[in-house]
């Protein structure tokens, strides 16, 4: 059987398809259909010829199979150091073979590639730093995912995830009305504690346009409220767009390139429409990578930059604390051992390592911050990056992957982990659920709000 009802080469483009695919509990039928899915070798080879550029060709060619990348990979470390987990092996045995065979590969091979691309690599890009040639297996796995997606070999949840983006232009079923309504609700819920608090929607010409992660309106709207409170206290002139507010890109995890481009163009359209001086995204790693680092290229922007300067939340927060827009009450600083999770997507991939540590210097009492080892750009993935967190089929592998982070956290002795990234936050939460090591975890926003020195005129009047 070439194309299945759920598992096929066609992306999900309608709400009906989306609901039907969701209705296939756990992707049971989906994965059964995958066993019969034909590989369109001609299309695959054509895609490779069209999209595989010199960098990838060179990387595949020059890899000396030296194995120096092995230890750099946390999945190699936690999986008994088996040769099958060496990054160079993982990419050569998948993409490498696919290219060598000019796309003439079978179903079994494609399923092996799928398992490797989504359960043996989180695209954390750490291996690229340790390869003497600078070969980045993570980048190549991102590319391989695109090829696999185009042939229908993608985990069920990610087919749905990119389908959500296609249908709702958000990773979850949050409509424009839901979003705007949630902003109103959060302003209303907090107006008493924060007199004058607003969440301005579609304000043209503001200093800041804020974008977030659909999980926030869907499940954790207090995150939006917290962003609003901090902008409010800092006296920022800010807004959120009614359309183009969703910054994340499960399509990037899925390898749905067409959808990646659509996501980011949607955000950029909001920037063109509202003309803010700059944009700020929430505490999310992959959203930043998608919209700020990779997005400009997907969108075909010649300068490789978003339409306006687009910074990560930690950059704004550090700036607000540095310039005194936000003041911390020294008595309320964190006075317990605390550690910090570096998000691969904006630390290793964009170099924001010192920014988060600057924030730490304001909010943690000196002597209480404990670095993980290794840290900064050398830190390990949380264990759930690149879509790993959300794939039921690879739950067990993901749980094993969490062990590296668990060991790192245990070694610090800290019971509080600051995780300014949705994905890391999730992985660390799941880590606690799975291994019960007795830790707490938090985004920056709620921690900072708790220790703010709020100016008199912004405090609620007490009666």
């Amino acid at each position: 059987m070439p194309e299945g009802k759920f598992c096929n080469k066609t992306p999900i483009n309608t709400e009906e398809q989306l609901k039907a695919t969701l209705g296939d509990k756990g992707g049971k039928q989906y994965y059964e259909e995958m066993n019969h899915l034909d590989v369109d070798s001609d299309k695959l080879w054509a895609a490779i010829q069209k999209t595989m550029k010199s960098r990838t060709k060179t990387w595949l060619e020059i890899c000396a199979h030296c194995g120096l990348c092995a230890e750099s990979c946390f999945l190699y470390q936690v999986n008994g150091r088996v040769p099958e987990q060496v990054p160079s092996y993982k990419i050569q045995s998948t993409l490498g073979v696919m290219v060598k065979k000019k796309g003439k590969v079978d179903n079994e091979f494609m399923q092996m590639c799928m398992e490797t691309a989504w359960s043996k690599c989180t695209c954390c890009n750490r291996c690229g730093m340790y390869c003497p040639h600078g070969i980045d297996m993570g980048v190549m796995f991102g590319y391989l995912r695109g090829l696999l997606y185009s042939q229908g070999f993608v985990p069920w949840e990610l087919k749905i995830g990119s389908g959500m983006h296609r249908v709702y232009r958000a990773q979850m079923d949050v409509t424009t009305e839901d979003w705007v309504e949630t902003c109103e609700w959060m302003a209303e819920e907090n107006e008493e504690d924060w007199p004058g608090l607003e969440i301005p929607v579609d304000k043209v010409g503001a200093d800041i346009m804020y974008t977030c992660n659909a999980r926030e309106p869907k499940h954790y709207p207090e995150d939006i409220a917290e962003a609003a409170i901090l902008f409010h206290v800092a006296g920022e002139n800010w807004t959120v767009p009614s359309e183009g507010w969703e910054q994340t890109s499960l399509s990037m995890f899925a390898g749905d390139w067409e959808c990646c481009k659509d996501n980011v163009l949607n955000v950029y359209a909001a920037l063109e429409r509202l003309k803010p001086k700059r944009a700020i995204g929430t505490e999310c790693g992959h959203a930043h990578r998608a919209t700020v680092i990779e997005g400009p290229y997907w969108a075909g922007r010649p300068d490789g930059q978003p339409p306006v300067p687009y910074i990560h939340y930690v950059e704004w927060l550090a700036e607000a604390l540095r310039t005194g827009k936000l003041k911390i009450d020294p008595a309320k600083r964190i006075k317990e051992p605390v550690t910090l999770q570096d998000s691969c997507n904006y630390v290793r991939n964009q170099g924001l390592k010192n920014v988060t540590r600057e924030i730490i210097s304001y909010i943690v009492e000196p002597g209480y911050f404990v670095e993980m080892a290794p840290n900064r750009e050398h830190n390990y993935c949380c264990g759930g990056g690149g879509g790993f967190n959300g794939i039921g089929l690879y739950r067990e592998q993901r749980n094993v992957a969490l062990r590296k982070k668990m060991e790192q956290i245990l070694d610090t002795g800290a019971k509080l982990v600051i995780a300014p990234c949705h994905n890391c936050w999730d992985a660390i939460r799941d880590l606690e659920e799975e291994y019960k090591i007795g830790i707490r975890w938090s985004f920056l926003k709620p921690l900072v709000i708790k220790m703010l020195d709020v100016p008199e005129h912004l405090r609620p009047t007490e009666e």
Partner: protein
Amino acid sequence: MFKKILLATSGAPSTFGAARVAFDMAKRYGAEVVVFNVMGVPTKAFSQVVNDVRTGEEIEVDDEYRAWVEEELKSTFEKQIESVEYAKIVTTTGVPSREILRAARAEDADLIVMGASSGDSSAYRKGYPGSTLQRVAKAARCPVMTVHRETASYWGGFGNIVFATDFSKQAEYAFRFALNAARELDCDLTLFHALDISGKVMDQNAIEDKIITARNRIRETYGPLMGDFKNFDIEVWEGVPYVEVVKIARERSADLIVLAHHSRELDPDLASIGSTMEQVILRAGCPVVSVSKPDKV
């Protein structure tokens, strides 16, 4: 004043007291009951998996599961649903406190009724520290009624209301709710203040002076708002506030305690135990209403 009651329930026996009170009120006062159930707490990032609130097991919510949960709720509350004119079941997934607030807002509920504790092992708490009640009580626009002890749910209707004040702004909203309820339901109303002398050794004259001052303050603060309502009296007792509130409620055979909720603290370690409201809820022999906003009083 009670046109629509949102009964937040996990369907577990620990919420049966809350259900009994909610349906009883609906029957007496002609209200609609929305039986609201958060069947699963999201887990695992963006996947479709949730932790079932009853079993803690990981499940995938689909139409079939949803229908099954609704059927369970329907049979659990069958007799009660039949006893009222309007009732409906609404289920969803999400973080319980957040979804209860969302539903109360969407339904424009006049009152939220819920149990006080889902137990430490429940999926409600799993991964989401902090008590559902604390979060709901803090942010709800409408009063929140809690029924914790089984015995607190066997009153029929309301006849005696104890309103305990700490003279905060929120206490004024709570007062308005208590007065309106007393008026509308023809109840006796006790305006009460507990003079906190816990952990202090005070001169008896000083205590008595403070009691007199507090009585006057109640009279001055709430007296002018009484209008033609006459069935009230004023009491000030010294002691540990939550103990005194529970004691006067018992002494007056109160069937409803009304308190203000105004803790800003949402840190679960600091907020979950210790507040007067929480202690009163745990100990009271009748339903407790907490009010934090002026909208629905």
